[in-house]
């Protein structure tokens, strides 16, 4: 047991984990957090808090993480390499650990040109691989990146992102292996809509025995509208949205699309559960946190196990 967080314990016990995600507000309004927390409480094993996602400035992941702890949920904070150098990252992680945050997802981060401050400098002092390695070394070697000893080390259950659908496709399982070697304890994948392709990826991952070294959580999320489906298909790099996914939503009357999207998501969860090596799901219902309990209900993942 690295940290003994709820998420870690659920996974270690062999349960199919379910995590959710919370997008912080573009303001200093703490009430938003309390409301969203209420929607998710009790339905998921841990909650990811994004870190200036798509390079849009939002309330910081660590601060929201602390608020979630106060609200009785377990946070998984996210840390990108885009906005902070290695000094700031290490300092923030010391603070996050001191404040009791147990889970950490290490990411490179969407490029600043996507967001609302496109003229900002992108830091990229480290990349995600180097970040994973640094965090693991802090925890297991009790060392800062410069080599100095840490008297009381920050302990995190370390996560990484994995995109089975990016290129070079053949390289992605190996990249996952590299991330695990660097320090990933668990992995959350990019949104899965192309289940067969994901299965192909997982087959190779299992062949490499990676599922035994790291917990792999499949990323899923409901599509609200046909327009959203099209947008994700054409405008979001790294997403693979097959045509039949879109067709299914087009096939129902407009007022039923949201519900159909929920059902679709739940089905994908069930399909992923069948794939060997998949240890859980990570549900990303962007600005639709209320959908998470419905999806997990439909997928038969409620109630969550108590460990």
């Amino acid at each position, binding site marked *: 047991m690295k940290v003994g967080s709820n998420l870690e314990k659920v996974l270690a016990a062999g349960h199919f984990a379910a995590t959710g995600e919370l997008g912080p507000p573009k303001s200093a309004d703490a009430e938003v957090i309390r409301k969203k927390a209420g929607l998710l409480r009790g339905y998921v094993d841990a909650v990811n808090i994004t870190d200036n996602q798509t390079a849009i400035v939002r309330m910081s992941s660590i601060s929201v993480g602390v608020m979630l702890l106060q609200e009785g949920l377990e946070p998984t904070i996210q840390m990108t390499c885009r906005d902070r150098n290695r000094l700031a990252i290490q300092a923030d992680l010391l603070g996050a650990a001191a404040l009791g945050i147990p889970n950490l997802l290490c990411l490179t981060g969407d*490029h600043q040109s996507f967001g609302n401050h496109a003229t900002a400098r992108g830091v990229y002092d480290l990349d995600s691989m180097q970040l994973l390695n640094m965090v693991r070394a802090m925890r297991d070697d009790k060392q800062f990146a410069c080599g100095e000893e840490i008297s009381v080390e920050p302990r995190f259950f370390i996560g990484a992102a994995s995109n089975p659908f*990016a*290129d070079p496709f053949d390289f992605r399982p190996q*990249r996952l292996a590299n991330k695990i*070697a660097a320090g990933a304890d668990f992995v959350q994948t990019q949104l899965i809509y192309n289940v067969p392709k994901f299965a192909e990826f997982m087959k190779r991952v299992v062949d490499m025995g990676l599922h035994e070294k790291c917990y792999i959580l499949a990323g899923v999320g409901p599509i609200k509208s046909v327009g959203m489906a099209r947008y994700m298909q054409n405008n979001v790099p790294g997403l693979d949205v097959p045509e039949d996914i879109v067709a299914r939503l087009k096939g129902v009357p407009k007022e039923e699309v949201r519900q159909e999207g929920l059902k679709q998501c739940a089905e994908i969860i069930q399909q992923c559960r069948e794939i060997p090596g998949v240890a859980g799901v990570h549900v990303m219902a962007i600005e639709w946190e209320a959908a998470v309990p419905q999806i997990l209900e439909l997928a038969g993942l409620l109630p969550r196990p108590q460990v």
Partner: protein
Amino acid sequence: MIKAKLKPIAEIREMLAPYEKVLILGCGTCVTISFAGGEKEVGLLASSLRIAEAMNGQAKTFAEATVQRQCEWEFLDEVAEQINRADAVLSLACGIGVQALAERYPDKVILPGVNTTFLGMAVEHGVLVERCRACGDCVLGQTAGICPIARCAKNLLNGPCGGSQEGKCEVNPELDCAWQLIYERLERLGMLDRMNLFQPPKDWSKDYDGGPRKIVREDLRL
């Protein structure tokens, strides 16, 4: 080579507003090759500015000259007379040349007429691309000759990121993903296992993060 691009005319005119006798000084090396500041461009810019002046009934004069390289003191000395006659010098050299002029002629107003953009090459005539970031610690030997600092938008050393799609970068679909190129090149060289080597964090102090850099060759000093 250093590549540059002419500043917008409006911006140039705004800079030149307070001055009457302007010398447009071109440079015969890098900016000539990037078609931004050589003798030809000096002529085109001078004519453009004269037209703009005439349109607004103003009386600025634009003298034209070009030196072989603005980053050598001796070449700058050659145009002392023209510079002294001018109220301001609009240098079409890269930032190095502009600064050299300012240092050599500290009592003169020296203004930049081009934006120095990057270190790069012409992959085809008229198409200039960035290739080097002068990071001071070249890693091209590890990445099969493709620079991840200059050509990856996130300067990843352990790439690619999840935004690499069909060989293109998520930031600009016209940009090749540098790590896709590195992957393919390593594959071609039979060195794909290098993709699994962990590249530790870069020593940015060798880049400008460590402050403006200097090379001294004691063996060459006169």
